[in-house]
């Protein structure tokens, strides 16, 4: 009797599975597998890549970045500069928020003021005052001559003043209302975010009518989701999965250099380094820092550990960005020369040092750190590894008091090297707000002055000159050892069409489906 029952149950199960196939995806619907979930859909809570990217679907800013990081008008249709510090913006008229309210200049002013009280206040730190001239005209005054204001404005997403005041922070977060190309349908945390096209979008309704973002945090599972057809597009493809995807006819792999530099922070400016058991800190000697650089085989790391999906770095920013100096040459792997330099510096037998690195922050970070340790061991520097999850790592290395060598990364999203120098290389505790993460305790007054000068000019050309000067000084000192730029890898079904972006964002409103 029970056997029959069991058979019935099993058959029912199998039938359900068979019938329960997907139903065919519509030609204007897209499912995206993302490496992370959004933290908020309130655009003013956190400066985090995925959060910003998803918020950009719902909200607009005054200006936008194109795929090539050019600034183009968005809600501000045009602007002019009255002086070094005063800008006037003319806004699009008749733009409506998703709830029907009209967008006006005061919504922008409100958004700026709202940001001032958050942990992303640095977005508006250079804005002295916003004046609402009339509903469609704004005046912005900067604190000092500030050449890159538009890059900051691009980050300031605009919320509806009336709605935000009425519903409060929590509801704004869960039921966001913006002027953007998509409206939120539902957000089930760590499962999916579904949006539908805003048919009344002021700049024309997007082609993809419904987009679902699924956070699939595990790299392997994300790849599996694309291979099994559950999603149409994934970001942050694991470098190991690239070949398999590239060899599949239905799939397209999108590869391009990213802005993220992976580098070594060298503790070379203190008498004693915490993890080196020697009387004085050997890395104070430039020759030792050079030996370390010569001892690392970046090409090998790129080829094997990164499976070819990275680009050796010759300095601290890619050539397209401000602060890049033509003619700086990276050190090529030369273990003999490295040993010579070590001997010259008085360390023919090398020394032992600890390398701090994260193990869940950058692509294959733990493996790269192990490769570096293995390579340096061959020139006599014995590297102990201290690998940490990112939740511990950034806390651990921030004060710089426990570290001698730190492997970390930086993404120059602002389009120049300035911010990176301010944070990592300007002398610690000397200038307000600068040098806060100077983990190598680098100090060079010429460098500091060059960085500060770059901030006090309204001309991009002058800024570039100052930053180039800084780059040259830091590279001569080997304040940081540049390793490689990561590659941004995305993979999609071949029928999804779009222009890949320099900032690696996935914007459904820039995509179409062509089956």
């Amino acid at each position, binding site marked *: *009797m*029970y056997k029959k029952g*069991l058979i019935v*149950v099993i058959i029912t199960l199998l039938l*359900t*599975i068979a*019938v*329960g*196939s*997907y*139903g065919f995806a519509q030609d204007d619907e897209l499912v995206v597998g993302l490496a992370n979930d959004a*933290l*908020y859909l309130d655009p003013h*809570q*956190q*400066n985090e890549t995925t959060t910003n990217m998803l918020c950009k679907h719902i909200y607009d800013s005054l200006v936008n970045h194109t795929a090539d990081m050019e600034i183009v008008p968005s809600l501000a249709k045009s602007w002019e500069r009255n002086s070094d510090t005063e800008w006037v913006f003319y806004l699009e008229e008749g733009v409506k928020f998703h709830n029907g309210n009209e967008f006006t200049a005061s919504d922008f002013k409100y958004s700026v003021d709202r940001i001032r009280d958050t*942990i992303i*206040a*640095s977005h508006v730190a250079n804005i002295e005052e916003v004046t609402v001239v009339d509903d469609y005209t704004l005046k912005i005054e900067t604190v000092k001559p500030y050449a890159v204001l538009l890059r900051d404005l691009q980050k300031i997403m605009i919320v509806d003043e009336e709605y935000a005041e009425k519903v409060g*922070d*929590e509801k704004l*977060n*869960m039921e966001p209302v913006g002027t953007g190309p998509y409206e939120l349908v539902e957000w*089930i*945390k*760590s*499962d*999916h975010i579904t949006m539908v096209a805003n048919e009344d979008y002021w700049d024309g309704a997007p082609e993809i009518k419904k987009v679902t973002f*699924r*956070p*699939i*945090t*595990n790299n*392997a*599972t*994300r790849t*599996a*989701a694309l*291979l*099994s*057809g*559950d999603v149409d597009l994934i970001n942050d493809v694991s470098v190991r999965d690239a070949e398999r995807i590239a060899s599949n006819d239905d799939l397209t792999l999108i590869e391009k250099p990213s802005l993220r530099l992976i580098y070594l922070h060298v503790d070379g400016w203190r008498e004693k380094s915490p993890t080196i058991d020697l009387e004085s800190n050997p890395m104070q000697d430039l020759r030792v820092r050079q030996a370390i650089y010569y001892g690392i085989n970046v090409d090998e790391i790129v080829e094997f550990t990164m499976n070819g999906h990275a680009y050796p770095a010759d300095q601290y920013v890619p050539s397209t960005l401000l602060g890049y100096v033509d003619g700086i040459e990276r050190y090529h792997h030369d273990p003999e020369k490295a040993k010579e330099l070590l001997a010259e510096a008085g360390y023919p037998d090398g020394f032992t040092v600890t390398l701090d690195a994260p193990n*869940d922050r950058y692509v294959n970070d733990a493996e790269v750190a192990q490769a570096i340790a293995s390579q340096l061991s061959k020139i006599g520097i014995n590297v102990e590894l201290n690998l940490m*999850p*990112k*939740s*511990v790592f*950034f*806390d651990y290395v*921030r004060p710089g008091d426990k570290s001698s060598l730190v492997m970390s990364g*930086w993404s120059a999203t602002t389009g120049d090297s300035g*911010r990176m120098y*301010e*944070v990592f290389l300007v002398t610690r505790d000397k200038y*307000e*707000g600068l040098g*806060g*993460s100077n983990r190598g305790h680098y100090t060079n007054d010429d460098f500091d002055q060059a960085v500060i000068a770059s901030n006090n000019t309204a001309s991009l050309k002058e800024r570039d000159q100052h930053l180039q000067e800084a780059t040259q000084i830091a590279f001569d000192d080997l304040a940081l050892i540049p390793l490689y730029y990561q590659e941004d890898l995305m993979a999609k079904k071949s029928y999804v069409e779009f222009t890949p972006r320099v900032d690696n964002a996935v914007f459904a409103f820039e995509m179409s489906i062509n089956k």
Partner: protein
Amino acid sequence: MFKYITKRLYQMILVLFVVSIIVFFVMSFTGDPVLMMVTPDATQAQIDRARTELGLDKPLITQYFIFVKNILRGDFGKSYVFKQSAIKLIIERMPATLELVFVSVLLSIIVAIPLGVFAGAFPNKRSSKTIMLGSLLGISLPNFWVGMMLIFVFAVHFRVMPSSGRGEVVNFLGMRISIFTADGFKHIILPAVMLSIQSLAILLRLTRAGMMEVMKQDYIKFARSKGVLQNSLLFQHALKNALIPVITVFGIQIGKIIAFATVTETIFSWPGMGKLLIDSINRSDRPVMVAYLMIVAFIFVLLNFIVDIVYTSIDPRIDLR
């Protein structure tokens, strides 16, 4: 009986209280959540502001009293990452986990009971021995590895099953449930199989042991000699009695399945509270970790309580102390 229940209730509250103390103080040794929230270029002023915002500038004892006071009002604090009520975040995800656990338990029962009855009734048959060896293998399998292999074989290689996620969900009694949609049902199969293997093996062994015990009893021997049919003998007479200890032990086992769901959910990107826990550990999101622990503690204590009550009321030999 009443006195026993009140005593047990009092013990439950005591346990939860102790757990709250341990959890809170131990948790304050985890990575500094403030530095997770701010960008590497934040100034000291920004860091201080974030710290004040989270209430972490106060002394630990004060923080604990605020914590307890809030818990008593059902408020476990706000997630540092999402700035939303931690308990709400967990409860949002609870149906997904419970659904997965439910299907796994069901799967275990459907498979394990018949096999266990068989192996217990005929312990010396070769097939019984194979079943027992199989169950031993089930206990020995690293279940995360099984999950990976399931995805590899069924989702990536043969492409007959979805690899991850929960699929389509429908609202059912205010909860979001996926097993009622074909798509959702398809999504739950692999994770449920992975999660059920261990409990299946344990349930099978329990059933067999219970069965063997019962089969020795006189009334079964008597029924057999009277010629009662095999199936009805096994399933109506023997099983009923064999199941009493099984139910109680398996009740506790459910708690373990909830805990093991963290691994399953991580592998299958199943949006349940276990995955939330692992994500929160990675982000040092203390309030969510604390809330998860307290809720899970509550579930376990409650399960233990129910199991005890059921056990004492079924089996009159147990003395109520």
